[in-house]
């Protein structure tokens, strides 16, 4: 049912393809501009924003440095409140646990709240293999699911689609939606009709959680549409799949995150609905609650003292909306459900640097620092990017017996630059050569081993006449 990021090309190739899609670039530029302004406005309203950010960062640091303590406490409180805690070492184990829990209910259908973690584990596909249909109920996730598409943004997974494209999709895939127009209100109404009976009949709900409170065993889901409330309240069984880094120490700590998250994420003072629940409650909501705690590379990330701060992330997506690279390439180029600056640091840590895609991600940035400025939990993304670049270069160098092209190029450059005669000769040669490869002053593709440079960017063509030659000619 759903596509996968598996086998996506590394960032430079994927970005080149995305850049050629002018429709998507227009959709993205418009959407990110809108949300940047909304965020700036509501953040500017709070004189204590910097103090909130600092508290948000410090609380995460406290949690992560004592994560074992908080996880054990959380498990104890959730269990005491009538919930059941399961532990999953990796995505496959999490999917097996969820599949088994659904099978134990005897149901073949589940309704899902938008959840990054189950996107990360590819849960829908695992359920499908077991003959269980998962209905995504968040509007954007539904658009992605119906279109057999891939998410391209953390908050708005269908941000790359405009209203006309969504109208066509709904007309094609939804029963009784042949006449739907392209007004967002009309499209939302169509989604409401499509999902209504599914909510009212659902016996099993699956969610993630934005926060888990260790002190009380409370889970928190922040949402807008009410699909979250439907999935968390109406079914008999609720299964929540949550990364181990989502713990916060105390109930009071939510006073920080419930201010930071909505303003950073949707640019609202508060999102329409936030649900919190602790285990199960007699006569209100599901009778069974299962919490699946996922490692999935988080402990590897935790072990890296510089990379550790990446686990502060509360998935607000503010860094995507301000990133000049993301705005142009879109989310798919990052080859993961976590795109943008946070994806560039998170994916190589959660998944390791075993694939060309994950090795390319730390380089998918200009290091401009806008992501760090807006991050509500102060993740120094540029710092982690540079750290990961060094790691990738070291790992790559360590595997080779021959020197890398960079090393060869640097050695050649030293030879050229160390003699004026050689430099002058090289410049004349470059001017000549550029006439062959340049078009309108730009070189789209450099030859030979230099091609790597132009994989992701055009190179300016060298001037037709080197400066020194011009000086000789005009000033002597």
């Amino acid at each position, binding site marked *: 049912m759903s596509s996968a990021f598996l086998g996506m090309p590394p960032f430079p190739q994927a970005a080149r393809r995305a850049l050629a899609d002018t429709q998507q670039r227009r959709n993205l530029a*418009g*959407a990110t501009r*809108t949300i940047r302004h909304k965020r700036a406005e509501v953040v500017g309203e709070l004189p*204590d924003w910097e*103090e909130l950010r*600092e*508290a948000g960062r*410090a609380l995460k640091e*406290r949690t992560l*440095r*004592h994560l*074992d303590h908080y996880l054990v406490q959380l498990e104890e409180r959730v269990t005491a409140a009538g919930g059941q805690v399961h*532990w*999953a*070492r990796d995505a496959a184990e999490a999917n097996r646990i969820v599949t088994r829990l659904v099978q134990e209910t005897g149901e073949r259908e589940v309704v899902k709240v938008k959840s990054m973690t189950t996107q990360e584990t590819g849960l829908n596909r695992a359920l499908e293999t077991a003959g269980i249909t998962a209905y995504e*109920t*968040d509007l954007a996730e539904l*658009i992605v699911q119906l279109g057999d598409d891939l998410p391209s943004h953390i908050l*708005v997974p*269908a941000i790359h689609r*405009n*209203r006309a494209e969504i109208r066509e999709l709904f007309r094609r895939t939804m029963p009784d939606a042949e006449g739907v127009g392209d007004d*967002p*209100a009309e499209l*939302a*109404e169509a989604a*409401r009709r499509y999902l209504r009976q599914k909510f*009212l009949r659902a016996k099993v709900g699956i969610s993630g959680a934005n926060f888990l*409170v260790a002190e*009380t065993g409370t889970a928190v889901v922040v949402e*807008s*549409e*009410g699909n979250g*409330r439907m999935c*968390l*309240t*109406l079914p008999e069984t609720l299964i929540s799949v949550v990364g*181990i880094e989502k713990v916060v*120490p105390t*109930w*009071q700590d939510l*006073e920080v995150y*419930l*201010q930071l998250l909505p303003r950073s994420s*949707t640019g609202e*003072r*508060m999102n*329409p*609905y*936030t*649900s*919190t629940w*602790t285990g199960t409650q007699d006569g*209100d*909501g599901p009778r069974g609650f299962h919490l699946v705690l996922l490692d999935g590379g988080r*402990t*590897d990330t*935790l*072990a890296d*003292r510089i990379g550790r701060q990446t686990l502060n992330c509360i998935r607000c997506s503010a860094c995507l909306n301000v990133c000049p690279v993301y705005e142009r390439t879109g989310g798919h180029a990052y080859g993961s459900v976590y795109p943008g600056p946070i994806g560039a640091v998170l994916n190589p840590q959660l998944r390791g640097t075993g694939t060309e895609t994950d090795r390319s991600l730390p380089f998918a940035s200009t290091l401009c620092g806008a992501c760090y400025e807006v991050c509500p939990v102060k993740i120094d993304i540029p710092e982690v990017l540079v750290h990961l670049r060094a790691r990738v270069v070291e790992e790559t160098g360590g595997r080779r017996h021959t020197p890398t092209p960079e090393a060869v190029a640097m050695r050649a450059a030293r030879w050229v630059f160390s003699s004026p005669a050689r430099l002058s000769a090289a410049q004349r040669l470059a001017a000549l050569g550029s006439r062959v490869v340049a078009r309108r002053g730009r070189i789209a593709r450099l030859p030979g081993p230099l091609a790597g440079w132009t994989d992701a960017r055009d190179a300016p063509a060298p001037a037709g006449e080197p400066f020194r030659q011009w000086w000789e000619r005009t000033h002597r």
Partner: protein
Amino acid sequence: MSTARDEILARVRAALADVPESERPADVPVKRAYATGGDQPGSAPETVALFTERLADYGATVRTVSSGRAATEVARTLASRGASRLVVPRWFPPAWSAQLAAAGMRSDEPPLSVDELDAVDAVVTTAALAIAETGTLVLDGGPGQGRRAVTLVPDFHLCVLRADQVVASVPQALSRLDPLRPLTFVSGPSATSDIELERVAGVHGPRTLEVLVVR
């Protein structure tokens, strides 16, 4: 064979080898230098005015009424929306429901099925408290609020609360709430911005939210 639990906890501990054995969680400094909402009493007129303005900003209708007129306003609001089939949870103050026709009222006792809830026009509830700065209502299933489903399935939610239930800030609200109860924070009618980030009110939750603040 070790369990996943033991293995993950062992990995966490191994990953934290740089954290000194003697360090306690409280040793990691957390500066709470942010505003907590001051000492302004909740019933201050400015606080209620801010709440009204902020909640209205989300597309909800908010009005302040005197306690003497509360029952009349509750009945009038429902009538103006054409809502005659109502759910009114147990312990909703009789002083506020006095002018509602008993014929159309259901109490959710014993609990209504989802189809029955889907068939009513409106739900009328109280709230646990409200937050001025963010324009938020918080429901905790207390007297007059009902379980979570009753404020979710009906398409129109009328919430009635006293002015002294409005607190200034998020920190003030959390310190007054009991996390062991299921809580719902409501800031306006359900909405989505998933299509071109254009905000559309009314998706799966109640599409209309009206609030009466009783002074």
